[in-house]
């Protein structure tokens, strides 16, 4: 049970990293991280981005479920 969940978790984790990297990065660099320059990214999200969001959310749910599942099965 734990092994199966772990395998699923590894696959979903890798998928998750890839999906997040596919997103267009928002907000740039350190300078506006700690109250530096003023930057406004006024770009609407495209259809691609929307679908990507949906897939990432689904992936995130499976990921969280796996983590919690392993946590319980190991106890």
């Amino acid at each position, binding site marked *: 049970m734990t092994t199966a969940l772990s395998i699923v978790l590894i696959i979903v984790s890798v998928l998750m990293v890839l999906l997040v*990297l596919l997103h267009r990065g928002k907000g740039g660099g350190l300078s506006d991280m700690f109250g530096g320059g003023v930057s406004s990214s006024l770009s609407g999200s495209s259809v691609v981005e929307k679908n990507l969001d949906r897939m990432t959310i689904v992936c995130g749910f499976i990921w969280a479920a796996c*983590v919690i599942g392993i946590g319980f099965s190991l106890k």
Partner: protein
Amino acid sequence: MLTAFGRAFRTPDLRNKMLFTLGILALFRFGSTVPAPGVNYQHVHDCLIQNKDSSVLALVNLFSGGALLQLTVFALGIMPYITSSIIIQLLVVVIPRLERLKEQGQSGQAKLTQYTRYLTVALAILQATGIVALARSGRLLPCTDSTGAQIDLLYSTSVFRIITLVVTMTAGTAVIMWLGELITDRGIGNGMSLLIFTSIAARFPSQGTDILRSRGTATFIAVLIAGLLIIVGIVFMEQGQRRIPVQYAKRMIGRRMYGGTSTYIPLKVNQAGVIPVIFSSSLLYLPQLLGQVWTSNHTFTNFVAKYFTATDSWTYIGSYALLTMFFTYFYVAITFNPVEVSDNMRKYGGFIPGIRPGRPTAEYLEYVLSRITLPGALYLTAIAVLPILALHFLPGAAAGNNQSFPFGGTSVLILVGVGLDTSKQIESQLMLRNYEGFLR
């Protein structure tokens, strides 16, 4: 002030954004408490109590809100992203190709952000492996049970389990990055800095109760008052700026009139923000890390333990102060380029009254900037070093580590910086609809 908050919540658009941000932050905090798969939570809890005062990994633990030492899913926190931003920022100065990208404006910046993201994942893999290896060998939280045997933090140390752990932590970092970007995109404020903000703020209650329990009510109240004074001082210094007037010439393009306005260039006293402190404390943390990994070499380990791990040693305080000073000037030089600013001003017909456009303007800006950065650098150094000194010299105060001191320099600096920035953003959103904001 409070009515402004009420108005902010009555504006549906703004309310949604604020609730979205709060929701994401709650999700982030939740993930910071879920133990990673294969970690024995009970043992970790016991070991944490044994290792309460260890200063090793304190800074990283600070940025992850205590999640690191608990080995949770989000153990690495935002640290890989910060490190990779720092690296990319430094590389922009060194590598011409990246510099050209930066000059391209929006599209180049997007590409740089993308590089930062890739580097974040790479660093996350590295750090996750390092931390899991430390946890496996029992060096992350060295602790023993009543019989003197080593307590294992992990259920099993098989290769498969270790890989699962590393991959999960890496994915956790990717998720954090995404959460931050979601806040930047759809919520209020800059996501990454808000995540750091919550991590640091989340440790305040437990640290507060620690002080209350171990030192008594009087010390607790004294610390609270001192913290309040420090916050007031930091807000004062952060808001300080010199406004250099700029006049724009009137221009006719076709039948329309452009320019003719007068604005100013704000030169902040602390142009660099918190970054110099983060840079220098990250750098000083490197020898500690090396000494930890390289335990077999005793001369090196002892040297590091004597001069760099003990935060009350003069070498540590001295090098911390010097590095902070250096990085303040360095970072201001990176972020504000007088030649570029003066060129841009000239392009749009702007000038500083009394000074010719072009090179004299650049020289003037450079002069003012280097003068105004000196108090900024001194202030940052004081903020960074004073808490250590205070802890060292105050009677009855144990020489603990500065990062776990609740109102210690770095954390308050970050809290105030992010707080100011976020409230300014909410205010500007509010200004779209009403004319009265928080700050009068």
